[in-house]
């Protein structure tokens, strides 16, 4: 048996050494890791509008993603009433950079509903304009999130990307890993012909062919699919005040 003081000495020295090593590594790589994360998110946002691009964002280099995002995407931040927020508003909500892309929906999800803010990305490409909404909800094990691109008519979905924190690989994780899942949302509509908000439902049982408000689910991933349905229903609803304003403005113009 070692004496208590020698045990404590060993533990203190070891912990200090380990903590120092990891802290050094973490701080020296921190900047690059943050940059990687930002590019990862931008790639996902651009992935929702891949139909408007000449090249699949998955295959683009990091630099290309940055350049494309900077030149073609206009980012705005909205509050629950659909009002466009200024840089100061975003900073006051707790995001240092003041850019809409800094908004962390995971943090927003914890705030009371009427205090939440969220980003909207307007993509202006040669092939047209698209509005990209960011949504976040819960899957089976942890959070899921996604980007939904709407066509210029503000009704039809042009594309979608999904991601998750810890869904089961091969089942719930298919919302991200299986490219056919997000592509099922293309052409679906979030308003019915009367202009009432319907969102898009992920269905366990088929019968979605020709139905513009539903897509096929993934077998074995019912809870994740229900999470996607709930996330879309609630997440897109937050943008409705703004979308209605835009649609109204368009009507009066036309």
């Amino acid at each position, binding site marked *: *048996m*070692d004496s208590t003081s*020698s*045990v404590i000495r*060993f*533990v203190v020295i*070891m*912990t200090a050494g*380990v903590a120092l*090593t*990891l802290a050094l*590594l*973490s701080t020296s*790589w921190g900047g*690059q*890791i943050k940059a*990687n*994360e930002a*590019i*990862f998110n931008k790639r996902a946002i651009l992935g929702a509008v891949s139909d408007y691009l000449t090249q699949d964002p998955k295959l683009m280099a990091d630099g290309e993603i940055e350049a494309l995002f900077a030149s073609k995407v206009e980012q705005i931040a909205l509050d629950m009433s659909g009002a466009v927020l200024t840089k100061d508003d975003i900073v006051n909500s707790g995001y240092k950079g003041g850019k809409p892309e800094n908004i962390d929906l995971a943090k927003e999800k914890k705030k009371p509903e009427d205090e939440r803010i969220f980003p909207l990305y307007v993509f202006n490409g040669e092939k047209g304009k698209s509005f990209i909404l960011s949504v976040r909800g819960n899957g089976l094990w942890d959070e899921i999130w996604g980007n939904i691109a709407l066509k210029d008519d503000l009704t039809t979905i042009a594309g979608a990307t999904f*991601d998750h*924190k*810890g869904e*089961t*690989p*091969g*089942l719930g994780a298919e919302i991200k*890993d299986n*490219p*056919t899942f997000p*592509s099922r949302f293309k052409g679906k509509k979030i308003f019915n012909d009367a202009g009432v908000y319907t969102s898009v439902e992920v269905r366990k049982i088929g019968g979605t062919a020709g139905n513009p408000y539903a897509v096929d689910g993934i*077998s*074995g991933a019912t809870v994740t699919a229900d999470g996607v349905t709930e996330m879309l229903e609630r997440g897109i609803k937050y943008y409705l005040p703004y979308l209605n304003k835009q649609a109204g403005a368009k009507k009066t113009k036309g």
Partner: protein
Amino acid sequence: MAETTATPEVTVKEKEPLFGKAEKKLLLDPLGDTNPITIQVLGICSALAVTSLVYPSVVMAIAVVFVCGFSSLFTSLVRNKIPKQVRMIVQLVIIATLVTIVELTLKRFNYPIYKQLSVYIGLIITNCIVMGRLEAYAMANRPWRAFVDGLGNGVGYGVILIIVAVIREIFGKGTLFAGSPIQINIIGASNNEVGYLINTAAESGIGSLFAGYTNNNLMVLPAAAMFIIGVLIWIQRSYRPTLVDVS
């Protein structure tokens, strides 16, 4: 106890070659006769969880080889200094540090893979093989041998992981290396977006022989990994009856 750890007896002599017979045995035995999964039945938890796809399994295997090798090395280096009362906590700190380094390295150099594997990398800390080797071997042997022993056990684990993942992915999803740049689509009904080597929707050729084939959803579930590992254990013990427990 089902989890028996076999400790190879190694006699230490002076002036041995750096990579002699003993080292070779340490490196290769875990691939067969002392395999951590099929013989010692360790590390089953992560073997069931991560093996639904090959690509994450390969990265997981590499990470475990790294963590297992270096945690054995570091533990062996300080083995005479570690106070007996806290030795398991010390081992845990060494393992956790290495796992955090793996995680940071992936974040820094390949963020997409980190995102795909974030859950599994953390799981390495709970992998019984790593701590099993520290307790059974590294605490009592010299650093170089402990390192080789750690590497060997990591590889022995990784090989089984990849075998199971290949079977599960082909029959569960009809693909190989899905999610990686070298994804191969093996079998499935082709639509416009994806091409398969065996297209079950084809009118003629090899694909038409497989008309009506669907992927086996059981293979995607962890239960399938248990069956496959069970069969692997059965095959291995049929070939080497000496491995069968008499009890």
